[in-house]
């Protein structure tokens, strides 16, 4: 099917080829332990975060160096975001939220480096993150509130006749959350990178190639914005879901 589409579309390369996973050291089989381009770029992201947060802030200077002030800005940004949404009680989940934000931010931005691989464009990566949040919130909700957590689905403010209907809708929307949470991130990143590749395919046609190069520049700028915003959106939705676990009646 892919060959047929490639032949008929006239592109030099297929726009979705960039998302192919292949083993780093030859071969074609991918086992769970095989080092692939996916694992390579995940590891590079973790190393970059380590360099920023551990090596960059090693001096603990009163007057911070440039790297240290960037690390402090990110820390303060995530901390304020969590505190604004969940209140004081939610602040103890800060390490989890900070980890999610930095990981997604770095993987997104490293994916924008030319010739690199974007790990968050794969639903497998974002689904693990999204379902992790879902399971954490569900378990936390029952641990912190007991059976009262189910009161989240039973709207006390609604008229009695409507409450069962609203409860069904609320339960469905609760279970769709992890799907939309993970598909949103993967879809946005994948769509953006595919669009860049489509315009790169048009650059081979001489008549419109200057136009398509300009379009690539513009879309690349948009993608830089989207990479940051999607990391922010994923994190703030995590905060909103955590708020449900901490205060289920609001």
């Amino acid at each position: 099917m892919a060959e047929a589409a490639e032949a008929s579309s006239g592109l030099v390369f297929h726009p979705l080829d960039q998302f192919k996973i292949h083993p780093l050291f030859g071969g074609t089989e991918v086992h769970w332990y095989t080092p692939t381009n996916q694992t390579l770029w995940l590891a590079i992201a973790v190393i970059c975060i380590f360099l920023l947060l551990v090596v960059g802030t090693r001096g603990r200077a009163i007057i911070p160096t440039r790297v240290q002030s960037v690390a402090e800005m990110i820390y303060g940004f995530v901390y304020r975001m969590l505190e604004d949404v969940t209140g004081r009680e939610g602040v103890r989940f800060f390490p989890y939220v900070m980890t999610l934000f930095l990981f997604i931010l770095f993987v997104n931005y490293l994916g924008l480096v030319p010739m690199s691989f974007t790990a968050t464009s794969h639903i497998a990566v974002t689904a693990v993150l999204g379902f992790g949040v879902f399971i954490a919130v569900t378990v936390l909700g029952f641990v912190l509130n007991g059976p009262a957590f189910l009161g989240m689905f039973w709207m006390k403010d609604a008229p009695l006749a409507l409450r069962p209907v609203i409860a069904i809708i609320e339960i469905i929307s609760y279970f769709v959350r992890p799907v939309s949470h993970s598909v949103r991130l993967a879809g946005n990143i994948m769509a953006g990178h595919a669009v860049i590749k489509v315009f790169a395919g048009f650059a081979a046609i001489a008549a419109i190639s200057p136009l398509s190069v300009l379009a690539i520049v513009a879309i690349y700028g948009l993608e830089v914005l989207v990479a940051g915003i999607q990391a922010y959106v994923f994190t703030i939705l995590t905060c909103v879901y955590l708020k449900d676990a901490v205060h289920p009646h609001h």
Partner: protein
Amino acid sequence: MEAVAAIALGKTIGAGLAAIGSGAAAIGVGHVAGNYLAGALRNPSAAASQTATLFIGLAFAEALGIFSFLVALLLMFAL
């Protein structure tokens, strides 16, 4: 018409129809951003506190467009 050709035709038409959803999501995202701006210009002092709500609204509106894009991609390449 041959069955194979009919399936290919149906897939392409279906992917095109699914792409309408992306346009609909664009209307939704524009609505969220436009109403936020209208509110922010009326009361600029309250605008900063509502940026998080703005992004949550944008994300919810945009997710449905991404779903339709995903359906189009699945029709074109996966099925």
